């Protein structure tokens, strides 16, 4: 049986993020009081607790801070695509995100690699941010 990879399940904090992703745009939260940008969208700014937040579009470029090649997947759906790369990526605007590194050269990933966002189709219009290494 072919198991499909999971789709995003937005909540009230993240709905605009996932809606933008469907259009191929990567959003982060920005605090209009202190200027801090954060990822994992919240109701208030985790730096200053202001609730005056806005959504801003990220350039989608960043750097790999760490990664792992996963061989023993947590679910049957991911086992079907293993091995795959998970990574923590610092966007150039500041926030750190978690995603897969994808592409033909994904297994050559190293800490410090430049990466750029790309969007993966998870079906029914759901697109999720992923990252690919920037070719030198």
């Amino acid at each position, binding site marked *: 049986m072919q198991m499909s*990879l*999971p*789709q*995003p*399940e*937005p*909540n009230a904090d*993240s709905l605009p993020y996932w809606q933008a992703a469907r259009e191929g745009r990567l959003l982060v939260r920005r605090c209009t009081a202190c200027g801090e940008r954060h*990822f*994992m969208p919240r109701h208030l700014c985790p730096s200053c607790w202001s609730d005056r937040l806005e959504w801003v579009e990220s350039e989608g470029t960043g750097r790999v*801070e*760490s*990664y*792992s*090649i*996963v*061989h*023993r*997947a*947590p*679910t049957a759906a*991911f086992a079907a*695509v*293993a091995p*795959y790369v*998970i*990574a*923590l990526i610092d966007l150039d605007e500041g926030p*750190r*995100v*978690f*995603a*897969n590194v994808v592409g033909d050269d994904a297994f050559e990933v190293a*800490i410090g690699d430049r990466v750029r966002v790309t969007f993966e189709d998870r079906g029914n219009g759901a697109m*999720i941010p992923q990252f690919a290494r920037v070719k030198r």
Partner: protein
Amino acid sequence: MGNAMSLKNKVAIVGVGESDIGKVPSMSGLGLNAQAAKRALDDAGLKVSDIDGLLTAYSFTEPYTMLGSSLCEYLGLQPIVCASMVAGGASPGIMLRHAAQTVALGLADTVLVCAGENRATGLGRDAAVAVLAQVGHPQFEQLYGGLIPGYYAMIARRHMYEYGTTREQLAAVAVNTRAHALLHPNAHMKTPITVEQVLSSKPIADPLRMLDCCLVSDSAGAFIVTSAERALDLRHAPAYLLGIGEKHTHEHLMCAPSLSDFGATQSGRIAYEMAGVGPADIDVAELYDCFTIVPIIELEELGFVPHGDGGAFFEAGHARIGGKLPINTHGGMLSHAHAGAAGGLFGIVEAVRQLRGGEGERQVRGAKLALVHNEGGILSSHCTLILSNQKG
């Protein structure tokens, strides 16, 4: 820390117990807790009626909504203090702190702390992996195939990048710990391993392999906390609590303030200050070891060695019984047992036993000060505690 009343010398651990460990299909999770609790009670020389407080953690296998109440009900206890505390692997240390406060303030006299579950046979390996996958953030981690070994693998990869920690040094942690487990009569693992075996074990999440990962056991552990005064009248020499500290920085690794500085530095500092001792005074350390990278980082953050030197310390054999600082003398979660919050609790059990003396080949000679470190999540929640067989 403000002007908090110090918990130093106020309470002691007077009884410890372990359930049967390994694959124990004949027992439920609550049954394992009951067995560990009964053994701790017998060890202390107390009666059931002496217990007026109970703290426990959580169970994936038997997810009762009110686990503390469910366990009291199962045990026939009607205490005046009861709670279920959920801070992952840090729960046992945190439960000790709450038990200590409770006793020190006179809110209860004798608190039973227990945790564990039948994770090996009640859940099964595949189901355990699937349940543990739910630990990842539902929207931003599970979507990408995130998994606990993967998060720790990224921490290990970062440590290797920053400090030159080697794959062989990680393996040395597993080998060291297994050697200690072979000296423990109740340890899950009973055969020796080599560095080569660790390096060739099944890849899980690069750079971590199967033998870098903790066990999945059926097991529960328990300890009993009472006042320092009351402790003098009981069966064994008391293990006094000299210092205890916590630090909480995040839950999901993507939100951690750093990939190389975690909360153990500060939880350790609070514990050392309360105890009035430093790393050089510690005789034996029981460090949380869900993955081989973790005790390396804790060794560094707790001030035993400079950042980056933890791997070499294990590789040189300094963490062996008889070495500079024996670590995980019972075999840790890598080789003794791991089942939910029981993993870190066994570190506390072992510290108490080492301080009493008489553990034969496993005994750290003349151990007077023991440090235990528990961490939960992905190096998210930390608790460090210092115990001694003498008041500080």
